[in-house]
């Protein structure tokens, strides 16, 4: 299939595993010609994007560039008007519901930390654990040895071992953000979508978060949407700049920062 193939045609072959595998070519997320309009406003305009397996990708862009809408499309919250979205080994994301996508291995961390405030830190992780989501199995569920070991190792990774029994509503803002990342890890996702992880964090917490995300890349594919340029620079792998629902530029931080179009729309000079 040629890259110029129209979206409609590639959509038709989405169910064909071999054909879509060709399109993916090792990418874990493949978006092609995604268009989303809200009341005539085009939040995403023929967006094409590919994320490679195991990479740490930063997505930046001014307000209204379509960053959140893109996340919504990938997680199934928003259905696009047209386009193709493939995941992993050619799964068509648009044929799946939100919970199905979550279970297939795409985890999302929201901009505002939304942990379950009235449950303990450890209980928050337990609920996020990759396990049967059915009503009956949860009624009689007990954690196995491996499961509780996994939970403890995640607690260690996010640095909340000491706070495990605390009510999640009572921990600090930064700790809530880490707890959320821990909840993503409990799902053993293939892809982590992380929305503004350092908003409202102290300098130290920001540094700690950068370390955490960097250490997660490789085993996982990490996609970070962020405003804080300093933070993006400290992660600095590949950066994608979105503008008006399209990819404006893509490359390493220095490359994008020196792109005159990026300077114009993003930095406003």
């Amino acid at each position, binding site marked *: 299939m040629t890259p110029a193939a129209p979206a409609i045609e590639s959509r038709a072959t989405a169910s064909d595993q071999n054909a879509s595998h060709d399109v993916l070519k090792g990418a874990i997320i493949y978006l092609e010609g995604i268009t989303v309009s809200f009341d005539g406003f085009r939040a995403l305009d023929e967006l094409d994007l590919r994320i490679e397996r195991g990479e740490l990708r930063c997505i930046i862009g001014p307000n209204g560039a379509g960053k959140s809408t893109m996340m919504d499309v990938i997680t199934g919250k928003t259905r696009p008007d047209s386009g193709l979205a493939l995941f992993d080994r050619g799964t068509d994301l648009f044929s799946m519901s939100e919970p199905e996508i979550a279970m297939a291995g795409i985890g999302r961390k929201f901009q505002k930390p939304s942990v*379950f405030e009235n449950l303990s830190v450890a209980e928050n992780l337990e609920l996020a654990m990759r396990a049967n*989501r059915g009503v009956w199995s949860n009624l009689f569920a007990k954690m196995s040895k491996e499961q509780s070991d996994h939970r403890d190792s995640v607690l260690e990774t996010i640095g909340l071992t000491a706070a495990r029994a605390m*009510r999640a509503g009572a921990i600090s803002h930064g700790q809530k953000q880490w707890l959320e990342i821990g909840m993503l890890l409990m799902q053993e996702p293939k892809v982590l979508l992380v929305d503004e992880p350092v908003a409202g964090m102290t300098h130290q917490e920001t540094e700690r978060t950068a370390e955490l995300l960097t250490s997660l890349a490789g085993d996982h594919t990490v996609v970070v949407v962020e405003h804080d340029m300093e933070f993006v620079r400290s992660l600095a792998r590949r950066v994608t700049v979105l503008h008006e629902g399209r990819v404006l530029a893509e490359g390493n931080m220095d490359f994008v920062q020196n792109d005159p179009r990026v300077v114009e729309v993003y930095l406003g000079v």
Partner: protein
Amino acid sequence: MPRPSFISRLERPDRVVYGALIVIAGMAALLNLVVPEGSAFHMSTFTVTLLGKYACFAMLALSVDLVWGYCGILTLGHGAFFALGGYAMGMHLMRQIGERGVYGNPELPDFMVFLDWQELPWYWWGFSSFPFAMAMVLVVPGLLAFVFGWFAFRSRVNGVYLSIITQAMTYALLLAFFRNEMGFGGNNGLTDFKDLLGFSLQTDGMRVVLLVTSLLALGGAYAICRAVTRSRFGRVVVAIRDAENRSRFLGYRVEHFKVWAFVLSALIAGVAGALYVPQVGIINPGEFAPLNSIELVVWVAIGGRGTLYGAMAGALLVNFSKTYFTGALPDAWLFVLGGLFILGTLFLPRGVVGVFTKEKE
């Protein structure tokens, strides 16, 4: 003491609840049946029946707390499930009257003879059988809750909209049961019951048995609710209450959890209604009144939601006050109830039991 290890494994609120239920059951049996009537320690049969009613109300409060306190579903129509359970029991009690009715018709209940009906409607078939009637006590409220919940939660009806349609549900049932053509005794409902399982409902012994049965059912319902809320299911339900979308993103089918919590709650309410009817001796459409269902929520709010025992305490507290005030100052009762609700909401956000328990940090 037999098996002290079992008792020591119970948490404090559980010990208090089970202990209180056992003490009330024992006291009622002893003071009503053994202590002679003239004695100052004698408990009147009126009090026994009153306690039995309270036990049913506490169970009903428990069912509301399960869906409201834990799952965040503010139901304003839970009286409907209570009433349906009550009607199922009432229908069995009507069939037990046999030819002892005013008209002495062995085939038809009095009100049907009065309406000049010739034969028993099909939906009354089987109610002569006690096991069948008991099954209906569970099946009818459970099925209604399932169908209602399925449509409401699948369409993601939430918050105040859900509360309004639960009100509409109980109001629709109220209007339906008022109609004579429905075949449930219309305005007058079902009454004039004689006996249950061959025992007269009027004897002191039977009153105590009904009270003890209600307390057992209350204890059982409490144990079930405790087990459910402490399971991972219970944690998922709390997660849904606090952040529904987040739970959905974690992969939980929110509507499934809600609907099953709702069904379990309706089953408990139905059993409470079934135990209530033989003790008060009547079931009529008034039980479906929207105001009744709102009152339930007030009990739970005053007692303290999300704790189970708080809901039970609230039901007792409000109903004791109701019994007192409707006797002492009949006109003031609704003002007292309203005042309790407002003061409770303002000053006791975690209810009366919140005063005695420390918040977990």
